[in-house]
């Protein structure tokens, strides 16, 4: 007979319980089963009869088990007492439920415990250190009274808690006890368990815990601290909780995930998950080296699932996900970059950027005539049309759709005051937006154009006004986008640093050294051009201090050749 005994608290799916109990006894582990008193008599007596042929299966006194009530503790006590009394070889008692399933060959668990004969495996933390309490009750579980059922008499429950808080009613915690909480599924040594069960003050403790809320998460967890010589504060049972604090149910498709966890026992298993029972209850010859249980391996998957359940997918707008703007972390699904003034200043900015970063570089997505998708495409991913009408009908949805449809690939696009401006507020409030602006660069195409000077003058005034408005918006508080702004004069004086910076912002593959720079357009005479505007009574200030003779500092600037970094 094994030195491991198993206590099972069950209330439903008794056929599965029998299957699992026989699995334990086949390895020599005695099993004591507590069946909830709410289980009716034919079902119970049939079950007992079915297990009668196995001498290692015993049934304990029955109690009514309500969630959050004392019954579960009473059940554990009765069953554990029976176990200790009838099976003297048992050294460790493992508390499990009817929905628990051993994941690894039982021999491994038995050996594991035999190697640690004095260790109590029970998750036990002080109330200050736990983050998973529901309903905001932690220390108050121990200092208030809970005569009403949380499930059935919620209003009374809440009202009585409020009343006690208002009146400052407090119970005193029995002397010597420090409240601890943790998972109700433990594995204790005979020494610790019997010390708890045979404590001379047990009647007093029981009386106290009877009115503590959810005592099954605190009774053994607190008392074990009094007697144990070596507590490992973790549960050997893998148990996951969903976002509402209810235990996560494992189905057939969790098979690989459970295998990877290396845990000894998992709960809750859906009682009709045939493949799981089939896979884990047939005797596995695990050739693996004995591994430590490692629930961390699958934790990430579950926290992701909980997060996805709670928040949905960022940047997705649909029928069942249409968040109010202020509740969103980001308005789009993936980071993207907006460049203003770069395409005007560099002849080949788009191809250069695509080459340097591997991102998809669009033209002016918000061009008034047509959406300039990369590669001059008519349709972008998701059958998104290049029709300016459709875009302008709801520009924010257009952009969030584009980013959603291409998620995984970084999008960049050119922007300018000459484009549709309705997207500005959205960009400013989206933390996925990285905006780089060279102010005043919109004047370059005008400078190089063949327009009449009077038209140039009025267009300059219009664009400058638009850009000023945009900058004002980007300057307000509560902006979430990452914004970099240079005046054109500053940028032209030393373009390499800013270019390096934006590449680094985008996490480009070779950010350490920029080897090839884009070709800047010939700006010879631009200073003069600005001066002419001034002479006509228009004041172009967005470009910064652009010298009239194009001479920055003491060196005349040559715009003849492309920039290269030495």
């Amino acid at each position, binding site marked *: 007979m094994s030195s491991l005994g198993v206590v099972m608290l069950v209330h439903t799916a008794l056929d599965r319980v029998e299957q699992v109990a026989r699995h334990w006894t086949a390895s020599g582990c005695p099993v004591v089963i507590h069946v909830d008193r709410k289980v009716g008599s034919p079902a119970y007596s049939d079950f007992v009869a079915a297990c009668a042929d196995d001498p290692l299966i015993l049934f304990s006194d029955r109690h009514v088990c309500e969630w959050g009530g004392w019954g579960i503790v009473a059940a554990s006590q009765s069953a554990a007492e029976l176990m200790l009394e009838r099976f003297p070889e048992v050294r460790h008692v493992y508390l499990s439920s009817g929905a628990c399933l051993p994941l690894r060959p039982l021999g491994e668990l038995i050996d594991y415990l035999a190697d640690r004969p004095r260790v109590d495996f029970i998750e036990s933390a002080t109330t200050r250190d736990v983050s998973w309490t529901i309903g905001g009750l932690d220390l108050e579980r121990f200092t208030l009274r809970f005569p009403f059922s949380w499930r059935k008499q919620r209003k009374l429950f809440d009202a009585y808690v409020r009343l006690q808080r208002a009146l400052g009613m407090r119970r005193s915690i029995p002397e010597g006890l420090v409240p601890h909480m943790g998972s109700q599924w433990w594995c204790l040594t005979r020494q610790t368990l019997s010390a708890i069960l045979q404590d001379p003050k047990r009647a007093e403790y029981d009386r106290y815990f009877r009115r503590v809320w959810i005592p099954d998460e605190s009774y053994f967890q607190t008392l074990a601290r009094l007697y144990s010589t070596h507590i490992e504060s973790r549960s050997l049972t893998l148990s996951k909780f969903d976002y509402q604090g209810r235990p996560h149910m494992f189905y057939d498709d969790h098979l690989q995930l459970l295998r990877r966890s290396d845990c000894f026992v998992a709960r809750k298993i*859906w009682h009709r998950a045939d493949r799981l029972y089939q896979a884990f209850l047939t005797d596995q010859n695990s050739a693996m080296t004995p591994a430590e249980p490692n629930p961390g391996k699958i934790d990430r998957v579950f926290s992701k699932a909980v997060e996805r359940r709670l928040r*949905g997918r960022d940047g997705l707008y649909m*029928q*069942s*996900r249409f*968040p109010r703007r202020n509740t969103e972390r980001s308005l789009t699904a993936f980071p993207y970059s907006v460049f203003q003034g770069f395409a005007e200043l560099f002849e080949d900015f788009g191809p250069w950027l695509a080459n340097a970063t591997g991102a998809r570089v669009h033209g002016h997505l918000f061009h008034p005539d047509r959406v300039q998708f990369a590669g001059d495409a008519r*349709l972008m991913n998701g059958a998104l*049309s290049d029709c300016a009408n459709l875009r302008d009908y*709801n520009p924010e*949805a257009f952009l969030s759709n584009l980013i959603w449809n291409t998620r995984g690939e970084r999008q960049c696009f050119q922007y300018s005051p000459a484009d549709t401006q309705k997207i500005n507020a959205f960009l400013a409030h989206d933390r996925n937006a990285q905006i780089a602006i060279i102010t005043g660069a919109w004047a370059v195409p005008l400078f190089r154009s063949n327009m009449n000077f009077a038209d140039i003058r009025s267009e300059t005034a219009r664009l400058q006004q638009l850009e000023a408005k945009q900058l004002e918006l980007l300057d307000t508080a509560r902006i979430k986008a990452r914004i970099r702004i240079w005046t054109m004069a500053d940028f032209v004086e030393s373009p390499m640093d800013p270019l390096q910076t934006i590449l680094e912002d985008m996490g480009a593959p070779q950010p350490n050294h920029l080897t090839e720079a884009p070709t800047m357009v010939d700006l010879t005479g631009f200073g003069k051009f600005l001066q002419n505007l001034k002479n006509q009574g228009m004041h172009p200030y967005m470009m910064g201090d652009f010298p009239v003779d194009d001479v920055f500092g003491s060196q005349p600037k040559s715009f003849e050749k492309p920039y290269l970094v030495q």
Partner: protein
Amino acid sequence: MSLQDQPPGLVQRYKLRLKRRRLLWRSFRSRHQLTALSDRTRRIGSGDILAFTTLRNEITRLPWFFHHYRAMGINHFLMVDNGSDDGSVPYLLDQPDVSLWQTGASYRASRFGLDWLTWLQMRYGHGRWTLMVDADELLIYAHHETRSLHDLTAWLDAQGCEAFGALMLDLYPKGRLGTQRYDPETDPRDTLNWFDPGAYRARRQHPLGNLWVQGGVRERVFFADRPEKSPTLNKIPLVRWSRRKAYVNACHSALPRALNFAYDGPGGHTPSGILLHTKFLPEVVEKSRIEKHRRQHFHDPDQFGAYYDGIISRPNLWTPGSEKLRNWQQLQDLGLMNAGGFPATTGK
């Protein structure tokens, strides 16, 4: 994405109440327009889920419509025939689980059949889950192959949800419209298996608070020049009905206002499904000719002549950006629907 999420004031709320009462009154009066051809409503049992449909000349779609919804667990179909002459009526009279009414009154004047159906819902749907779908709409939801509408509605009840929203997804063939073959006994999804995956946009509308979703293939091809006219794609087809409830505009929006918030929620908790729209079966070309002439659709039919002409010209709606329809998991990955926690099994 306008930010008008504030609840309406007292006056506004009272106006909505009056509007709801007026709609219910209209529907109540419209009962005179209906003649019962076969009333099997006595067979409706408690806990049954009912489907409500208005139709006209849908004989090619009906076989699969019944196949789909019977398999899904609809117990009884309450249908209003608006002057079919293609054999739909005898076909429907043959179905054991159909109660059929007929009317020759104007479809447009009855708010596109809504008055009739609201009356039937009021009369037979009170306290039950009701599904309002057209003959060319096939509802799907997470795990629909394995879990019935009864499972879904029981779960919705447990969640305290009174309604279930769906996006209407236009399916289209690859190739010019009207050039495919379709056998009415087969799944229309074999013929129409492409859709636009990612060009939908939504905003909240006031004062009803419903989402207004537009986009997709019909907008891309037929309404690019006037997106404000493009078809509304949001629907609330499945509702635990009460005789005090009323749909306002087809089943795009409803009163009381709270029903319209069955969608959304700050973080995408809510479940939603997809109404697969099989409008573009080959017969659509011929039907568009007739409908253009009948002028029974849309508030202002003159504005939609170009739409019908567009369909009659047999365009190819398919583009390299189109996505091939596979299953609901694909639609969920694309963000067009959401299981919202509806589990694959009834675990206990």
